[in-house]
């Protein structure tokens, strides 16, 4: 066990490589009948190159990416702001907390029909869905993080001459970062899951839409290309936040 644990992180690639090799062999040997339903890995990669070369994949990927980035950034900034205010001012917490507790449990996709009618089917629709999916959890996590900062730190900062705003910005907010980042990290991955679902159901462009088109054309290879891309994006978004959190808090937390 000890020897296994000492392996460098790069070795995580090995099981993946083995998995791909088995996949390739099983598909090539035609162990499962029906090539079109189970293409080998190499065929999928060929299709990947083709989709990149003819611009179909990049354009759909970019539409999804832009939606996720805008929706997630705006949603989490709003969540951070409202969450910070709620965590800091008891009055605002009392005012908003019941509302947020009721809205938070609604699955983001549940809003889709309502938003389709309110907003219509346009670029704003997926962004609004991502906004909702990011806002509530991040708001909630931020408020919790801020409220859980030990009151003693606040008092100490006060006696050292800090005004309320300074205490918030220099002590309370930094100390709440670990909790806030938990929310950001989860929601960064969640944003990708939600955007695909929204595109599959309601929006004619993006990776989700491409997936649905591939299904109707029985193009398993394209479906697999999309799924691999999604896996990579969700993984790297979550990783990016883990990295950022480490950068900001590793030295002390």
């Amino acid at each position: 066990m000890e020897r296994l644990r000492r392996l460098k992180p790069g070795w995580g690639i090995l099981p993946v490589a083995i998995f791909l090799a088995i996949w390739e062999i099983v598909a090539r040997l035609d162990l499962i009948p029906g090539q079109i339903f189970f293409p080998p890995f190499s065929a999928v990669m060929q299709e990947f190159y083709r989709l990149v070369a003819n611009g179909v994949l990049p354009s759909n990927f970019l539409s999804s990416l832009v939606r996720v980035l805008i929706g997630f950034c705006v949603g989490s900034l709003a969540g951070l702001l409202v969450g910070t205010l709620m965590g800091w001012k008891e009055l605002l917490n009392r005012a908003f907390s019941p509302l947020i507790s009721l809205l938070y449990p609604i699955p983001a996709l549940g809003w889709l029909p309502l938003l389709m009618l309110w907003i219509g089917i346009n670029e704003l629709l997926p962004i609004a869905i991502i906004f909702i999916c990011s806002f509530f959890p991040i708001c909630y996590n931020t408020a919790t993080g801020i409220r859980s900062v030990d009151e003693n730190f606040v008092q100490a900062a006060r006696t050292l001459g800090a005004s309320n705003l300074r205490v918030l910005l220099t002590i309370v907010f930094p100390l709440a970062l670990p909790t806030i980042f938990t929310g950001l990290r989860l929601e960064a991955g969640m944003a990708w899951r939600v955007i695909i679902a929204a595109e599959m159901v309601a929006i004619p462009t993006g990776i989700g839409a491409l997936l649905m088109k591939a299904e109707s054309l029985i193009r398993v290879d394209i479906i697999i290309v999309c799924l691999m891309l999604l896996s990579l994006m969700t993984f790297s978004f979550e990783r990016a936040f883990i990295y950022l959190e480490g950068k900001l808090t590793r030295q002390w937390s």
Partner: protein
Amino acid sequence: MAVIELREIHNYACRGINLEIHSGELLVLLGPNGAGKTTLLNVIAGLTEYEGSVLSDGMSIDKLPPQKRKIGYLFQDLVLFPHLDVASNIAYSLKVQGWPKEKVQARVEELLELMRIKHLASRYPRHLSGGEKQRVALARALAPSPQILLLDEPLSSLDLQTSKYLRVELKQLQRKLGITTLYVTHELTEAEEMADRIAVIQEGRIEQVGRPEEIFFYPANEKVASFIGAPNILQCEQTRSLDQGLAEVNCGGMNVILPYDGRPIQRIALFPRDIYLSPLKPPGPEINRFKGIISEINMFPEGVRLSVKVKDNQLLAEMPYQVFEDLGLRKGQEVFLILKLRRIKVYQGEPR
């Protein structure tokens, strides 16, 4: 340095506290847990609600928020900011007060030097030992040159050795800076060692304020006497100097031998736990040994207290219950008393 006055402070823990902390003095607020010591610090710091008035150099500061009160507060659990390194912790107050960068740096250097923690400047609090944290917290409290320093049991979290060492250092530092200091503790020896004056607080009331020896030899009431360990206090006369820094005094018919520095000895105090009883005549030289009769026996949760009549004095002795059982002492029995020479406290001040 500032004079701090408390006038009729009332709140959930304080019951009408009046207290004056002289400029540059170290006043120890001494009392058992739950007496209201920390609350009183929080009142001065403006961190808790109260009625009454806090004056700094004669000016009321009741309306000022904590950040404007010019206090340095060393919290009992220190509360170093975990996300800032040592230098930034110390610099915090200066930065939020908008000092220019170079001045902040110079002041931080100065404090690192003063507290001898230069090597810790870039460490984070979680990598510091208890004593190191203590120094950093003190440096941080002193950074903005506060008018009064509030110390809440500053040594209670440390091991005995570190605590003894820091105690001396703290006292020297306080002298050097001449900063008006209110020092909270529940430890009698700590109070005695640190204090210019001691204020004994119990159940939200100040029971007595005075120099340590006044508290010991002239406890104002039963509560104070019992808190400081119910010492036997004997009036003495006829100091007779012996050699080797000792003297013999006559205290109500008992000839007691004591350490002596030339000034006449007015009173001595003996703590009940420092008087040993024995039903048999103990071997060895007959110094500070007396014969007496047990006149009363009282059981307490902490042990057994025996009242012993020796010549004209009634002395209180204390022992653990097990020892009492083993010795088989009874009321009316004749016993031998041994006073521990080193534990006898001597009052040489002016008679009151």
